[in-house]
């Protein structure tokens, strides 16, 4: 009887060991499946992020020239990059060069008129009545636009007028009335203004060069 019981216990113990081993294998299998799934997911992610290889062209094909209309805008675009390591933006430098040329040309134009005025002899027959008429009419315009008329000097073809406008708007109002009013403009010759000088009180000072009608201030 004892021997039988011993056998039964032995068989039960062996069975439970087999069941435990099977469960362990099953768990390991599940864990392995999970790892494989993770690996596959990583592989897919890597494949998505891979970029095509970069091809460095040492010589542009003949058919890929920039259009003629674009080339002047690029300016020095085909020139070598600066070797100081700084970033060179050809479009920006071309625009800056154009702005500098424009600025210089505008300044030269103004200086040429100032020089012409300074060099002109005074022709009394024109200068006196013109100055007088200008003073009278510009004084009237300046009153309506809140501007202060300063010195007026006329020579033989050009008058120089100093004026201080109470504001930028007053300046626009004064000019519109004096030079472009269809019924009552003061002066019908060419006019050139110095760049407006902004005073601390907000007023704007300008020198106006008025050319005799039929002449041109810029030659």
């Amino acid at each position: 009887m004892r021997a039988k019981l011993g056998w039964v216990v032995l068989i039960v113990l062996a069975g439970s060991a087999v069941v435990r081993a099977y469960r362990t294998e099953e768990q390991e299998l599940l864990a392995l499946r999970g790892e494989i799934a993770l690996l596959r997911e990583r592989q897919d992610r890597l494949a998505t992020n891979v970029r095509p290889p970069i091809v460095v062209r040492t010589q542009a094909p003949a058919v890929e020239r920039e259009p003629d209309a674009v080339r002047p805008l690029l300016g020095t675009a085909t020139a070598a990059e600066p070797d100081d390591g700084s970033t060179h933006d050809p479009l920006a430098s071309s625009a800056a060069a154009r702005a500098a040329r424009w600025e210089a040309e505008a300044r030269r134009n103004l200086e040429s008129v100032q020089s012409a005025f300074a060099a002109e002899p005074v022709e009394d027959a024109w200068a006196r009545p013109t100055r007088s008429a200008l003073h009278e009419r510009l004084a009237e315009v300046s009153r309506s636009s809140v501007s202060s008329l300063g010195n007026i000097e006329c020579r033989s073809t050009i008058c120089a007028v100093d004026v201080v406008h109470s504001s930028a708007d007053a300046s626009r109002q004064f000019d519109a009335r004096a030079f472009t009013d269809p019924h009552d403009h003061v002066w019908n010759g060419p006019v050139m203004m110095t760049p407006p000088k902004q005073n601390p009180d907000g007023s704007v000072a300008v020198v106006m060069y008025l050319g005799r009608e039929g002449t041109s201030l810029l030659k």
Partner: protein
Amino acid sequence: MLSSQSDARSFPAFLGQPQAPGDYTCFVNSGGAVFNVCSTTRRFCVTLPVEESTHAIEVTVTAPDINHNISCFGQSITRDNLNAGFTGTQSPGVFGSAQVLRLATLNVPNAGGLYACCDLAPNAVLRSFNY
């Protein structure tokens, strides 16, 4: 191909707009030319894009007769719309055919602007701008 120096440009008058917004119905476009079909004189202005300083504007116009004339002037401005120069006003002395008004040369400050305006009597025609 564009040159580094600015070439002459031309625009039909249709590019512009009336000085007073209420005058749109007064101006009729025909082939790029603008006619004043209202019964009184109205002003029409055209902006002239620039990339450099010195500009001589030519305006082609037709006035039917001396009582229905057209007068034009050019104006340059700074980048903040202060005035930099005016050409003075010119009108044609010959009527019934297209005439070119040559306005005085203007100086446009760097980054400033240029435009021209014309006062058109009834039936006067503003045709084009060259500068």
